[in-house]
Structure formats: C-alpha cells, structure tokens
C-alpha cells in the first residue's frame, strides 16, 4: 500500500511548510513532505511514538529556524530591487515620497498633539480620580462662583466620597530681592495640594501641615518654568529668601513641569502666607468666595455618587444658612473630571484638525496610488519579461508590495522629521487651548502611529498596484497590450481615485473656507473700541505699602500726570483691566449683583448681575469708547463726592429700554450704598470679538481704588514708549512691579490667535489637498490623451476641429470634477457640523462658501485639464496614424 501515512500528520506538515515564502513552498514543499514521510516511517520503526514525537519537535524547530531566514533573504533582495527601481524613476520617487511625507507628517504632528492632550492619562497620580468642584448660582447665570473658607471646611468635613478636598486661588504679589520688584503670580493652596495631585518636587520639599498654620514662617514653592526662566535653574535655590507682603519668604522647593490649572503660577504659598486668605474676614465670611476646590475621589466612587454627596451637603447648608443661600440664586455644587476640565477647550479643534489631516493622508494615498498605476503601465513589459524568465506571480506581487512599503517607509520617516520640526509651533498653538500642551512630544505611541500610517498607506497603494499588475502579467508580452483591457480598467481605477481626491479636497476646502469666513467675520466685528496705538502695562502695587483707597487713588493720579507729561502721549488712563487683555480672557471679568432703585425684585427672581470695571476719567477717550449719553468721569469724582458709575449701552437697553438712565441709582450691596448713573458708553467686546457684550458697570478709579493697568494712547508706535513709561512709573513709585507690557492691538491679535491658527492649518491642509488633486486630474487627462492618440488622429483625419478635441477632453475632466464635487458636497454637508462650535457668524452650510469652493475647484480642475487637452488638439493626424 503506497499511501499508508496518517492523513493528519501530512496535512499538518503541509500547513507547517506554509510558513516558508511562497516560492520556497512551490520549489521544495512537495519534496520536503516526501522526506518527512520517510523520516516519520523510520522514526516510528525505530523509536515508536517517542521517536515520532522527537522527529516532530525537531522538524517544527527546524522550520521556524529556517523560514525567517528565507523571508529575510527575499526581503533583502526585494528592497535592493526597490531601491534600484526608485533610483531609475527619480521623478516618481521624489513626488511619491514628498506626497507621503506631507500626508504622514501632517497626521503624525496632529496625532502627537491629540495623543498628549486627549488620549494620555493626566500626568498626576491616578489622574482619573481627580475632580474640579464648582459652586454655581444657576439662576443668576454664574457657572462658578467659587467657595468661601467656611464652605470649604464644611464640604471637607461632611463629604463621604472624597479622600481629600483642597483649595486654590491665585493672586499677584510683588517679590523683592531678585532684581527689580517683580510681579509674581502666586497660587495659594492647602498644604496637601501637591500631595493630593501626587506631584513630587524636583528640588526640596512641598508643604507640610505646620507650614499652613496661621503665623507659620512663610514659605514658597517655585514653578518649574519660573525657576528655569527667572533663576536659570539655580540648583541652590532652596533656602534662599525673598520679601513679599512685607515678610521674608523662604524657598522650600521647585515643582516639576506639570500642567497648571486653572492657570499658570510663578510661585505657590500655603494659605497661611496669603495676607488676604489668612485675614479674619476671609476665614469667617461665608459669602467671601474666592477659592477654587479640587478633590480626589475615594477609590471606586463615581462622579455621579460624588455629585449626589455634594448635593446633600449643599442642601444641608442651604437650610442652615438660608440668608447666605437664597433659593432665587439657585446655588448648587457639582464635580467634573479634571481631565475634561483640562482638555475640553481643545477637543473640538483637535478633532477637526485630526479629521483634516486624515483627509490629507487619504488624498496623498490616492495620489501615490495613481502615480503607481501610471508607472505600472510602463512596467508591464518588465514584469512580463520577469514572469517569462520564471519569476512566480506571487513573487512579483510580493516584490511590488515591498516596493510600496519601502516608499511609504521613507515617506513616513520624512514625515516624522516634518512633524518633529513643526511640534514646537503646534505646542504653542495648543497652549492657547489647553494647559496640557507642555506634554506634547514624540514618544513611542506617536512612532507606532507613524509606522501604522506608513504600513496602512503601503498596503492601500501596494495592493492597488499589485491588483493592477495581476491583470497585465498574463498579457504583458503580447503586442499592443498597453491599449488593451488592462489599460482601460486602469483608467477607470484612476478616474475613481481622482473623483475621490476631488471629493476629499472639496471637504477640506469647505472646512478651511468656513474657518476663514469665520475669522473674517471676527476681524470685521467692531470691538467697540479703537485698539491701535495704545500701550498697556500691568501695575502691581506693593500691597503692604498701599493700604488705603485714598493712597492708591492718589498714586494713580500721580502716575497719570507723569505719563501724560511724556512726549508723544495723547492720553493716559488707569483701570482695573482693558478689553481683550489676555488675563481677562483667562480669568473672566469681575461681576457683582446689584439692585436698581425703584425696581424691587419679584420673589424668586435672581438679582441682576453686571460685569464691573474701574476706569480713570480718560479711560474711554484713550480706548476710543464713545459716550452715548450723559457724561464721563471727571477728576472731581473722588472718594468725597457722590458715588457715580457709567454704564454700557447693553445695560441701558436691558433695564431702561424706553427711559433715560441718567440719574438712576444702583446698589451693589443690598441698598447700603447707592451709585448714580452719570453716563452711557458704547458696548465693548471685553472677552473676545466673538463674545456678545454683557451688562457693564464702570466706576471711577478714584472711588473704587482698583488701578491695575496703565493705558496710554500714543502718536507713534506705542512700543517706542514702553521703556520711557516704565521708567516714569518707577520714578513715581519704585516698588510698583510692571509686567505684561503689550499694545492693545497685540492683545486683540492674540485673542484671535486660536481661530487664526486653526484656519491657517486647515487652509494649509486644504491647499495641499487642492494642489495634489489638481495635479492628479491633469495627470489622468495626460495619460488619457497619450492612450488615445490613434483615436484622436482618426477623429482629426475625419474632420474634427482642434477646438472640438479640446472641448472633448475638457468635458471629460469636467465630468470627473463635477462628480468629485458632488460627492464632496454631500460629505461636507454631513461633516461640517463638527466645525459648528468653532464658527462665528457663519453657518456650517454657508451657501457662499459651498458655491465659492465648488467654483474654485472646478476652475482649477479645468485649468489642469486644459494643458493635456491642448496637446491633444495639436496632434498631427498623419503622425498619429503612422505611429500606431
């Protein structure tokens, strides 16, 4: 009996042989099976089952030892061949690598941002347990009113769901003992703040309970950035002392680089060291709210459980202190995940950019596939010759896949370099959206992403070229094969790819177009003031030296007189802040509840809320804010005179739509003080040109004693005056810290940076896409012309006019472009909803953008087709017919 082997062992061995490269299997597979059969027979005869098992072990080990070497040999050969082919087709290689580098680079760059900001866990110990706790007054429309000291103590003592609750607020103090007096942004925190986050200092220690006792020697922790920037990373900083708030503060440590939320600080101090927080008034005042609260959930506690716990405490407090928590204010407390807090500002933009980068990669892929297809047409003969010389079909397919992988890999590496290069810029961009921007870097995750992108790309276009090659391998050596079925099929595939490229480009162009329109709208908005040629600088008085309002008012007056005396100064003002000031955009405006004389509140109604600002008489003139009614502040409006305010037009419209508000009175403190309205000024977009102006109340600096900003309108470039004015300020009071010197125009520019950068990036992506797609459609047309030379010759010989030929090809190109635009139109309608939250006064389906982009794309496609169409029209029928 010739066939006495058990079928399973033979089947298994054949499966094993599949580990080898296909050619190896074809060459030796049958023989190997034969040898193995004989070995098995002999092993069985000699050693029984044990012998057979031993043989199997040795055989399996042998296969897995040998097969990788065989694959490696082939890979080496294929790579060498791929490099040879790439050298031979330098133009193709350059374009393909460049296209892929742009596609993969754009994706890698955006992904590294998304990875760091949205995907990575927070750089704190068990960051998923960290929450931000908000006290809200919903009926008054305030999302975050902060907490007072008694409230924090109540929530800390009564909760059952938090392992710790810590407080935080930020203030500016003046630091002496390190060059000029410096304004330092100071985070004031509970002693266990850093312990709760799991932040370990890189130098020294963090706070301990004794540091937070009232009367403890004041201590400071420096942020990493402040230590690096202002102290050049001095390793001996711990133990150094500085003067702040009239007390000696000792540096006890330096923090590592971690994202700081809700804002960046230069230094941190325990609550006991802050003169405001440690005052009796703050410690006892239940409605003196200025603190934020962070917490760590106990293990296994969900956000909903924490919210329920907080709500129970809130309602307990509401019944115990009904005067502090009137039901009409709608007090409530809610926790939200810190991770969401840190990233929610960046999420929509990053998702849009990632989608856009993804489209660019798809377009790049389609383009390289297209290039590959046209090259395959030229390589048909080479492949056919190699087949005839004995190369197996699968061997050639493997070769083509290797070639595409080598291309994609080089493109990926170049893309990675591009991405690495642009990362600094992107991190700056992301920093405007999230404090996590500092975590952006290229790491293993990003490298794996790039590799995956390169492999994915090579699989897509490698498969396409392989599939296309399969059709032609059989017929390659036959004469005239270039014009045969395979060629036509290829043209169809190429047309589909072109339509896809145009559709994707259309979607990207729509995205970019909408963002640009939105940006244009923002630039067109009248902000309500004239930002040009105004210099602003932040002044921080030494708090301990300027205790009374009168003193501050007096010093402000001296400052103004000094500033106005400088040459080239048109007008000068001091104020609490100015419109679009970066810090204002971060922290929001100060607000107050007020009541209007003669307008008693209906029960259950929340008291109205207004933004408050203080301004010296020339504030409105300096910023070009128009007076609409009444008068502006005068020097005579001081502490001794009538308390006056100026309101904005939005307030007038809301509360006195049909009356003159001049002479009406407001009270910010339940009728204790009454402020008389003396003027109405125009609305100003304080918080962003895309933010509708709210209700605004201005009080004179002389009465409110809040002078933190010096504003100067100049005749020349305001920057020229920066140094002169700083000197002037220090001549009035050398202890004033000056910071944030910038022109108001720069502040406005800065406030638009995020939308401008988003628009620029989208525009860049869309531009690339357009270029690639238009070049692609031109290429397809050129190929189509060269394939149809004979047909064109016949047509012309039969009397066709050159203009007719041009029309024919333009019509063909127009057909592809229209189809692509049509599909893109549908896609864009579905996808632009993603952009909605980023758009200002533009709908996601803005007809003008859609029509404009469609026209641009179609015209660009026609121009690209015109060149090959003209070449077709200039074909000499005699030559064309003879050639064929």
């Amino acid at each position: 009996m010739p066939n006495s082997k058990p079928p399973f062992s033979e089947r298994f061995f054949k499966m094993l042989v599949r580990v080898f490269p296909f050619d190896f299997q074809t060459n030796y597979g049958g023989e190997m099976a034969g040898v193995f059969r004989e070995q098995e027979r002999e092993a069985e005869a000699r050693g029984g089952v044990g012998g057979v098992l031993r043989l199997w072990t040795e055989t399996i080990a042998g296969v897995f030892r040998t097969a990788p070497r065989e694959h490696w040999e082939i890979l080496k050969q294929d790579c060498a061949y791929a490099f040879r082919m790439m050298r031979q087709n330098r133009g193709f290689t350059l374009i393909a690598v460049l296209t892929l580098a742009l596609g993969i680079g754009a994706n890698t760059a955006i992904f590294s941002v998304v990875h760091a900001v949205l995907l990575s866990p927070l750089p704190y110990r068990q960051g998923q347990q960290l929450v931000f706790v908000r006290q809200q007054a919903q009926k008054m429309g305030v999302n975050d009113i902060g907490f007072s000291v008694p409230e924090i103590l109540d929530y800390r003592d009564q909760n059952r769901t938090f392992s710790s609750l810590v407080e935080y607020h930020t203030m500016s103090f003046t630091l002496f003992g390190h060059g000029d007096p410096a304004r330092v942004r100071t985070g004031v925190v509970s002693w266990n703040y850093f312990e709760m986050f799991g932040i370990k200092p890189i130098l020294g220690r963090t706070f301990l309970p004794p540091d937070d006792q009232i009367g403890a020697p004041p201590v400071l922790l420096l942020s990493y950035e402040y230590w690096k920037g202002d102290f050049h990373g001095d390793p001996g900083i711990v133990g150094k002392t500085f003067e702040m708030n009239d007390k000696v503060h000792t540096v006890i440590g330096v923090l590592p680089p971690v994202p700081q939320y809700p804002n960046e600080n230069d230094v941190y101090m325990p609550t006991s060291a802050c003169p405001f927080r440690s005052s009796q008034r703050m410690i006892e005042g239940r409605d003196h709210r200025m603190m934020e609260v962070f917490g760590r959930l106990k293990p296994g506690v969900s956000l909903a459980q924490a919210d329920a716990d907080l709500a129970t405490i809130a309602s307990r407090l509401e019944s115990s202190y009904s005067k502090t928590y009137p039901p009409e204010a709608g007090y409530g407390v809610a926790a939200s995940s810190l991770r969401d807090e840190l990233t929610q500002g960046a999420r929509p933009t990053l998702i849009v950019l990632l989608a856009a980068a993804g489209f660019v990669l798809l377009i790049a892929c389609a383009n390289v596939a297209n290039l590959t297809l046209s090259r395959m047409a030229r390589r048909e003969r080479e492949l056919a010759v190699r087949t005839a010389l004995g190369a197996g079909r699968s061997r050639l397919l493997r070769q083509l896949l290797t070639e595409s992988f080598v291309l994609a890999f080089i493109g990926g590496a170049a893309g990675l370099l591009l991405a690495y290069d642009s990362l600094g810029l992107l991190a700056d961009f992301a920093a405007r959206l999230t404090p996590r921007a500092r975590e952006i870097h290229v790491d293993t995750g990003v490298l794996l992403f790039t590799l995956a992108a390169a492999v994915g790309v090579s699989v897509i276009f490698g498969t396409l070229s392989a599939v296309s090659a399969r059709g032609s391998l059989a017929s390659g050596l036959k004469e005239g094969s270039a014009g045969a079925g395979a060629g036509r099929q290829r043209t169809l595939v190429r047309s589909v790819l072109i339509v896809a490229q145009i559709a994707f480009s259309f979607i990207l162009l729509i995205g970019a177009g909408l963002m640009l329109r939105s940006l244009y709208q923002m630039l067109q908005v009248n902000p309500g003031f004239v930002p040009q040629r105004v210099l602003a600088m932040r002044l921080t008085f030494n708090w301990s030296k300027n205790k009374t309002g009168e003193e501050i008012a007096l010093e402000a007056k001296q400052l103004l007189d000094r500033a106005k005396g400088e040459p080239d100064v048109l007008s000068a003002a001091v104020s609490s802040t100015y419109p679009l000031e970066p810090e204002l955009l971060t922290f929001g405006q100060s607000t107050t509840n007020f009541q209007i004389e003669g307008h008693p509140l209906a029960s259950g109604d929340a008291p109205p809320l207004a933004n408050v600002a203080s301004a010296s008489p020339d504030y409105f003139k300096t910023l070009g804010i128009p007076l609409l009614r009444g008068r502006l502040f005068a020097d005579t409006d001081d502490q001794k005179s009538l308390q006056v305010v100026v309101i904005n037009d939005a307030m007038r419209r809301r509360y006195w739509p049909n009356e003159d508000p001049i002479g009406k009175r407001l009270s910010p403190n339940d009728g204790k003080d009454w402020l008389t309205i003396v003027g109405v000024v125009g609305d100003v977009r304080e918080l962003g040109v895309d933010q509708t102006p709210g209700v605004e109340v201005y009080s004179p600096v002389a009465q409110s004693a809040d002078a933190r900003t010096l504003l100067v309108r100049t005749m020349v470039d305001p920057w020229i005056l920066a140094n002169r004015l700083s000197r002037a300020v220090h001549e009035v009071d050398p202890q004033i810290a000056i910071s944030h010197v910038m022109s108001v125009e720069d502040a406005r520019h800065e406030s638009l940076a995020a939308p401008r950068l988003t628009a620029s990036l989208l525009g860049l992506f869309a531009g690339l896409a357009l270029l690639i797609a238009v070049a692609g459609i031109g290429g397809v047309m050129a190929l189509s012309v060269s394939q149809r030379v004979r047909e064109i010759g016949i047509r012309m010989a039969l009397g066709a006019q050159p203009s007719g030929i041009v029309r024919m090809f333009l019509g063909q190109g127009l057909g592809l472009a229209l189809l692509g635009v049509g599909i893109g139109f549908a896609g864009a309608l579905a996808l632009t909803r993603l952009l909605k939250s980023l758009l200002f006064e533009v709908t996601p389906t803005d007809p003008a953008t859609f029509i404009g982009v469609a026209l641009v794309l179609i015209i660009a496609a026609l121009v690209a087709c015109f060149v090959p169409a003209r070449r077709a029209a200039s074909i000499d029928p005699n030559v064309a017919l003879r050639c064929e």
Partner: protein
Amino acid sequence: MTKKRESESYLPLTPAMFHVLLALADGEKHGYAILKEVAHRTEGKVQLSAGTLYGNLARLEGSGMILESDRRPEFGLDDERRRYYRLTDFGREVAIAEARRMEETLAQAHAKRLFRKPGLV
C-alpha cells in the same frame, strides 16, 4: 585567483551546509538520501530536519554550489517526484576551501599541543 577569493567569501560554512556538500561529494543524491548519509557518516550526531535541509539546499542552489541534476533513476526504481542534487565545480571548491580551513585550524590546535594532557611537556 578571483575564483578562489569568491569561494573563500562563503567561509566559514555552517556545519549543516558543509555536511550537505560533503554528502554530495561522492555523487548526486536526493534529499532523503542526503539526510541518511549525514546521519550515517556522523554516527547520528548530526540529524538534519526537513526544514533545515531544504533551507540549506535552497541557499546552496542559489549560490551555485549545487545544481538539480537532470538525471533520474530508471523508471520504477524511484519516486519520480524526487529531485537529485549534485555538487558543482564551484561547490566542490568551496567545500575544499572549508576543509582546508578546518585542517589549518586543526594544525594550529596541534601546534599548541591542545590534545596533550597539560603538565606532561
């Protein structure tokens, strides 16, 4: 000279490769016969698995040291699917070069009196 240099570029051969060349030195053989010959000659110390054998055959064939033989045993005497391999002149040169290399190494070991028991000199 060039040829010599070329054959030396393959040295040292892996033991499995050398044994396969050696097995073909006295005439052409099919795969299973090579396995048997190697096992027999080394008294079972070298047992090649099918994968290792054909991996080596592929490489030797690729570098021109062996060739598939055209000759087949008479009909009925052997399985027709079996392929026979023979040593090429180049393969013989490489095998000789490898044997010389081993011989030289062995001579050096002798010169160093490696085989004598230490302390007897």
